[in-house]
């Protein structure tokens, strides 16, 4: 047995945290989508979900490599992805939530959660990538210029499914409605504003999250209306993954995602 890899410890400056929020949201969402591999309700959707996971993973890789340069210890994308402790991940809490009924550690997920979450996130990411295209950080702008095209396609595909389920049978509509009720409280975190956002906005690194809200809500509302769903009211609950305080699901995700690199440090295939 090899020695188990020790955790790395980042110097989390405001810009590092800003980019990690995006990188980790893409990374953990990709990990959740990949759980569908071989389990999609139809073959085409199995392929779609894993293709989207691959795009998101590619975006996460580019962002993590960039974090490695910003952070200063010379950490590469693999060490950043696999060797951090939970409190140094800064993804939106929404992407940690279970979304597949038979997830080993996460009962209660549903395909409706998956398509709904894809719509909420792809719309958010599309708006974010569009704004990041004008970032003062040339590398971040370049990553965004590529990623926005991918997010646009994800949003269109997710929108198709949300309408199909929402405007489908009584059963599909009820399950989509339940998924919306589960997801919505977590959307507040997508638009909250803190010191990380303020610094990014001031330096031209990228938009503060609250600046993304109006355009996001307009686009999401259009699809929800077509799916015969009302936009839920805003909740008081504010999730905290973006400051490193995660839901109970995060530890399980990391245990699965990191186990190989922890047990076989630097392992490649």
């Amino acid at each position, binding site marked *: 047995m090899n020695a188990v890899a020790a955790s790395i410890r980042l110097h989390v400056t405001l810009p590092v945290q800003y980019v990690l929020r995006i990188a980790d949201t893409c990374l953990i969402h990709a990990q959740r989508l990949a759980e569908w591999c071989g389990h999609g309700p139809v073959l085409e959707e199995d392929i779609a979900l894993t*293709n989207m996971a*691959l795009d998101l*993973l590619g975006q996460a890789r580019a962002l993590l490599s960039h974090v490695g340069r910003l952070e200063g210890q010379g950490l590469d994308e693999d060490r950043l992805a696999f060797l951090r402790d939970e409190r140094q991940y800064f993804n939106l809490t929404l992407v940690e939530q279970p979304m597949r009924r038979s997830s080993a550690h996460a009962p209660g997920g549903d395909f409706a959660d998956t398509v709904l979450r894809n719509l909420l996130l792809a719309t958010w990411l599309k708006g974010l990538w569009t704004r990041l295209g004008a970032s003062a950080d*040339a590398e971040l702008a*370049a990553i965004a210029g590529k990623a926005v095209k991918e997010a646009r*396609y994800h949003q*269109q595909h997710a929108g*198709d499914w949300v309408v199909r389920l929402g405007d489908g049978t009584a059963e599909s509509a009820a399950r989509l409605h339940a998924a919306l009720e589960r997801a919505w409280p977590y959307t507040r975190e997508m638009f909250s504003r803190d010191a990380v956002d303020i610094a990014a906005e001031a330096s031209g690194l990228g938009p503060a999250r609250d600046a993304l809200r109006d355009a996001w809500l307009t686009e999401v509302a259009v699809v929800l209306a077509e799916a015969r769903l009302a936009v839920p009211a805003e909740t008081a609950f504010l999730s905290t993954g973006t400051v490193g305080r995660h839901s109970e699901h995060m530890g399980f995700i990391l245990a699965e995602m990191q186990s190989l690199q922890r047990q076989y440090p630097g392992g490649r295939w």
Partner: protein
Amino acid sequence: MSAAAARASRIDAAWAALDAVPDPEVPAVSVRDLGIVRAVLEHGDGIEVVLTPTYSGCPATEVIAESVRQALIDAGLGPVTVTHRLAPPWTTDWISAAGRARLQAYGIAPPCAAATETAAAAARPAGTIRIRPLRVVCPRCGSEQTERLSAFGSTACKALHRCLACREPFEYFKPI
């Protein structure tokens, strides 16, 4: 031969070698046809090839870089370095006319102009953001009576369609 002419011929030889490097996932077209080779530069006695990836998560990226490096070394042009450039982002509009013809002959419908797709998306009524692919012509029989079966396909760059005239399924290279 003058130094300038020698340099030009080395760069020409490199481009010619790149014509023979297939895309590993769509081997009907070369990396040059695909428009992912952004520049070939000479540094001293070495060659630098600048590539741009197609999709962020394209699993062929590393294979392509290695194939390019090996092809140029085999052509006697080494040492070779391969670098990546993200901006401006790759678009299917950079696929050459020859590449489009090869895709078509291979049974893959080439993409419509990305600008056309973007304009069509912008012109959609406010009530929908959903995918409405533009007219896709069957690469086998030329019919315009086709429909999409799946938004995603066997690789990140393709969707699956079928022809309602000849009843054959075919892949469509998505415009981005």
